[in-house]
Structures are given as structure tokens and as C-alpha cells.
């Protein structure tokens, strides 16, 4: 007498976020089309990344860069593989702890500590990914969320190691004895931004590789990808682990930059925040992550410093509006407008 309920995912297509509504479909990364506009954008992006601490308070600039890479790691799954991880705080947060512990106890230069954190995030991503890919669509989001909460509780229990509610304090920024990097956030930004750019470059390489094309094929039609002989689950696990590595890299930079990490970085609200940033910027675009991070981090910083407390009311409202009206996100909406304008100019009779 069990009440069985049919999964809506089977009526709405296979719950791939981007295929449900053809209008919202994210375009394939145009690998062949090397238009000058692309190079100009790349140059502008690089200059923006390098000039940021001149215009923004350097620690905030570092936050933007770290959240940007974190959002890109989520987008690698959401925008390019079609699965929503709602538990990425597990990787960002656990890496922040491991990075901090290595930096505190071994005193190695911070890039090495971050490497350790990143590897740890990838290691725990293997079982979590293995279990999570057994479910698709909305279930994947729920299962990853639950596992991330488990990591949170474990970190809370291991308070001898993690400092429990107090978090890890006084994480050093050791950098080959170069004092200006270790004490001045402005110089630290330039020491660390290379790692972030490396991470973004890695994401770009993954997306534009044959492997990345298979991911997009899985996103658009998992059944067809399977029929073509691709082991869909294995691809998903691999990209999940890679994505966790990028999230870990970002989390490590974040922890070193703040000199502090806490359970907040493992909290489910952190997972939610990065999804919010990704969707706000525009999924499946790579540029969306940095744009969304810049907006959200700056907004939070401004609201907090102006003494306004209802940050989540603002963020939540913005998010609701984006999901209701601008599902391409800000970057996606802008790109669409540009594309439409270009097309209108090319064939005016259309």
C-alpha cells in the first residue's frame, strides 16, 4: 500500500538545468571561433584582475578573486555538466582548514599549504562524488548538501584539531621570507592571484578539452552520451573531483588571506552563497563567476560597513528576481543582448 509518486524529473526531461528550456540553453564554448573580441575580453579580464587591489581594499579584492574561482568550480558542474552541487562548502571549507593546519604547524610557504588543502579536498571528493552521482537532478543537489553537512559535523567534533567553534586562528602567510607579502595585503594579493588565475586557466582548459566536450554532451543528453559509449558516471565523478580541487584551491587562498578560518566556511549557507554567485553571474559562461563574485562580495562589504544588517534579505531578493526573470544571469543576459545586436546589424531584414 505504499504511495508511490512519480518523479517529475522523468516528465521534465532528465533534470538538466539548461536543456529544460531551449531558450535558456547555454551555448557551446566556441573553441574554434577565435574572434578578436575574445582576446580583448581576455586582456580586459587579466588587467581587471591585476588592477583590482588599486581600486578595492586589497583583502576585499582577494575575497573577490577567491569567490570567483569558487563560483567557477561550481559552474564547471552546473553550467558544463548539468548537475548542481549544493555542498561545495565541504571542499572550500575543508581545504581552508587543512591549508591553515599545514601553514601553522609546518610553516611552509603558503602555496604549498594551499596545495595540501586542495589535495585533501580532492580526496574527500572521491567518496562524496561516488555516492552522489548515483542520483541525478534535484537529488544530486540534496545528497551533496547532506554530505557537506556531515563534513561540517565531523569538523565540529574534531575540535582538538579544528578549534571547534573558535576556528583556526593566526594562520601565517609564510612566503619565502619576503616580509612585504607576509604583512601587507596589497603585496599578498599579487603573490596569491597567480594561484587563482592558474585555477581559472585550469577550468578553461578542462572545458575546452575533449573531456569538456563530453561533459557538455552529458549535460545536454545523458542518455545519448551513454549510448555513445561514454561512462557517464565516471565522467561525472572525475569532474566532481576536479571541481572540488578548484574549490579547495580557492578556499585555501581565502584562509591564508584572512589568516583565520572557521566552521562558517563549511556551513551550508556558504554552499548556498556560491551557488547564488554562480547563478547571479550566469551559468555556463566562466565570466559569470568573477562577475557574480565581484557584485556579491562588494555588496556585502558595503552593506556591512554601512551598518545595514539585513544583507541576506537583499541577497535573497536579488536571487529570487534573477531566478524568476534573468535565468541567464547577468553575464548571460548581457551576452545575449550583444549577440542580438550583432545579429540585427548583420542581417537587418531579419
Amino acid at each position: 500500500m505504499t504511495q508511490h509518486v512519480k518523479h517529475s524529473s522523468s516528465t521534465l526531461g532528465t533534470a538538466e538545468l539548461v536543456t529544460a528550456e531551449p531558450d535558456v540553453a547555454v551555448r557551446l564554448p566556441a573553441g574554434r571561433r577565435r574572434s578578436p573580441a575574445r582576446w580583448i575580453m581576455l586582456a580586459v579580464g587579466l588587467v581587471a584582475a591585476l588592477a583590482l587591489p588599486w581600486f578595492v581594499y586589497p583583502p576585499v579584492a582577494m575575497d573577490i578573486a577567491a569567490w570567483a574561482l569558487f563560483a567557477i568550480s561550481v559552474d564547471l558542474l552546473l553550467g558544463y555538466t548539468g548537475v548542481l552541487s549544493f555542498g561545495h562548502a565541504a571542499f572550500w571549507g575543508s581545504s581552508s582548514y587543512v591549508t591553515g593546519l599545514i601553514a601553522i604547524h609546518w610553516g611552509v610557504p603558503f602555496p604549498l599549504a594551499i596545495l595540501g588543502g586542495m589535495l585533501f579536498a580532492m580526496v574527500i571528493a572521491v567518496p562524496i562524488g561516488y555516492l552522489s552521482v548515483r542520483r541525478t537532478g534535484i537529488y544530486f543537489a540534496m545528497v551533496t548538501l547532506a554530505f557537506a553537512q556531515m563534513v561540517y559535523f565531523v569538523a565540529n567534533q574534531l575540535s582538538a584539531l579544528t578549534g571547534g567553534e573558535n576556528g583556526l586562528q593566526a594562520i601565517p602567510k609564510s612566503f619565502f621570507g619576503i616580509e612585504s607579502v607576509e604583512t601587507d595585503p596589497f603585496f599578498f594579493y599579487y603573490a596569491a592571484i597567480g594561484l587563482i588565475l592558474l585555477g581559472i586557466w585550469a577550468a578553461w582548459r578542462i572545458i575546452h578539452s575533449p573531456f569538456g566536450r563530453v561533459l557538455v554532451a552529458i549535460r545536454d543528453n545523458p542518455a545519448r552520451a551513454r549510448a555513445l559509449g561514454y561512462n557517464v558516471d565516471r565522467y561525472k565523478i572525475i569532474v566532481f573531483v576536479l571541481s572540488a580541487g578548484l574549490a579547495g584551491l580557492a578556499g585555501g587562498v581565502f584562509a591564508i588571506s584572512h589568516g583565520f578560518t572557521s566552521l562558517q566556511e563549511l556551513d551550508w549557507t556558504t554552499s548556498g552563497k556560491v551557488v547564488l554567485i554562480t547563478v547571479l553571474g550566469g551559468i555556463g559562461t566562466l565570466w559569470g563567476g568573477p562577475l557574480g563574485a565581484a557584485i556579491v562580495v562588494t555588496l556585502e562589504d558595503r552593506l556591512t560597513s554601512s551598518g545595514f544588517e539585513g544583507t541576506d534579505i537583499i541577497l535573497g531578493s536579488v536571487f529570487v528576481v534573477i531566478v524568476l526573470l534573468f535565468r541567464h544571469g547577468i553575464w548571460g543576459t548581457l551576452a545575449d543582448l550583444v549577440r542580438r545586436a550583432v545579429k540585427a546589424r548583420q542581417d537587418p531584414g531579419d
Partner: protein
Amino acid sequence: MSAFVQYTVQGLAAGGFYALAALGLAVIFGVLGVVNFSHGACYMLGAVAAAVLLDVLHVHFWVALVVVPILLFLVGVLMERLLIRWLLRLDPLYNFLLTFGLSLILVDVVKRRYGVSGLPYERPSGLQGQLQVGGIGLPTYSVFVCLLSLLVCGLVWLLLTRTRMGMIVRASTEDADRTRALGINVGRWVTPVFGFGIALAGLAGVMAAPFRAITADMGGNFVIILFAVVVIGGLGSILGAVVAGFLVGLVEAYGQAYAPTFAQVAIFVLMAGVVLFRPAGLFGRDETA
């Protein structure tokens, strides 16, 4: 032995909250295909509403038990009419994200209005103290929560299996298109069912009010455990949601009693086991993606 019985009652009481709220989640998912992320926030709203009604209007617990779910029903109707409705034709992930945003707003509004420290709520007279059952002392309120949640689950069960309305709801969860083909206006049931699911979360909130700390954040962890509950039970299954709700409550209580270090982790280990060996959930039908 008496300790074991006490832990069991404690677990069934905690499980009662999960079962009621998960039931609401399952009914909503069945008819609308929406996983409501704001379910935890609605549970919190239920508890806060009970506390505020008692404080301002001196509404007694027994009255709140009826009034608050009706209020939450109206909140649910508004949510569905104004927001959820527009995304129903899209991938369910969009409504998941929408309700997440909504949950951020609701929690922060309550936080700004009532602060972060807990609101007080006295256990209603008559439900204080202990009951002596066969020489074992049991907290009266826990027993009450067990019985009431079982009763409500039973009533919902009767509603779904014995009435025409329930038949329509079950038919549309089974196969909405075929139900439509049989001349049933499925769309008409979407709003009341959403409201009903939210009302169940609100009822769980009222029942939790005298039992738990009433804070704006009380729904955060709750909704994640709810997700674990429905993954364990099988999101498609209404019976699964109820059974898994009580099961998770028991695991939590026994965990706290016998292995406090792992109490909270145990639930997720249980979920991992289910995902590994029965991916569709204990009562779920195989999902064919």
C-alpha cells in the same frame, strides 16, 4: 531498559517533527515536482508564530496548534501564487533555487525583527512533567508529540486514501497527464496542495515550539536533515517520508545516548548506506533518468 525506552520515546518525538515536515515535502514534490528548500524556514515560521501569538495575543498552545497551520497555509498559497507557479514548467532546480532565496529572506527578516537569541515558550500546562508508564518515567510532552504526529500522519493517510480529493491528489502524483486525460483539473489542486504541505511544516514548528530553542536559524539544519529523510525514504513515497522521519529521529536519539560523538554524523551515514545500496530510497521506486 527504562533508559532505552526513554531514548526511544525521545527519538520518536524528534522523529515526529521530521515525519510531519517530510510528509509536507513529499506531498508538494508529488503534485508539483518542487523540492521546497524553504521548508525549514516555514517550520521556523510556525514556531515563531506560535511564540509571538502567545506573547502578544495570549493565544494558547492548543489554539495555536490549529491557527498557525492555517496561517502557514495562507503563506504557502501566497508563495505558490506569486512565485513558485511561474517556474513550474521549468527544470525543478529553478524552484529549488527560488525557494532557497526565499528562505534567505524569511530567515533574515525574522532575525532582524526578533533577534538571534531564542524566543521563550512555556510548555503548556497539562503537558509538563512526567508520565509513569509501567514504572518508567516518560516526559509527557514527548509522548504527546509522538501521539499527535502519528495521529496527523494517520489522518493525512485517511485523507489521501479514503476521500475523492485524496484520490485525485494521488492520481496526479502518479501520472499527471493521464489524470488530466480522465477529465480532472490537476492545475486546480496545485495551490491547495502546496499550502497544505507548508501547513504541515508549520504544524511541526508549533509542536517544536515548547521543545526546542525558537530562533531564526532553527530551520537551517532541520531542512538538511529533512532532505536526508526524504532521500532515505524515497522522495516519491509518502509512506517512505513518514517511516524515514521516525527512523532518523530514532537514529539521532540513540546516537546521542550511546555515541554522542557520532550522533549527528550517524544520520548521514545512514543516508550514504541507502544511496549506496538502494539509490531510490527505502520505499522509492526506481528512478529512470
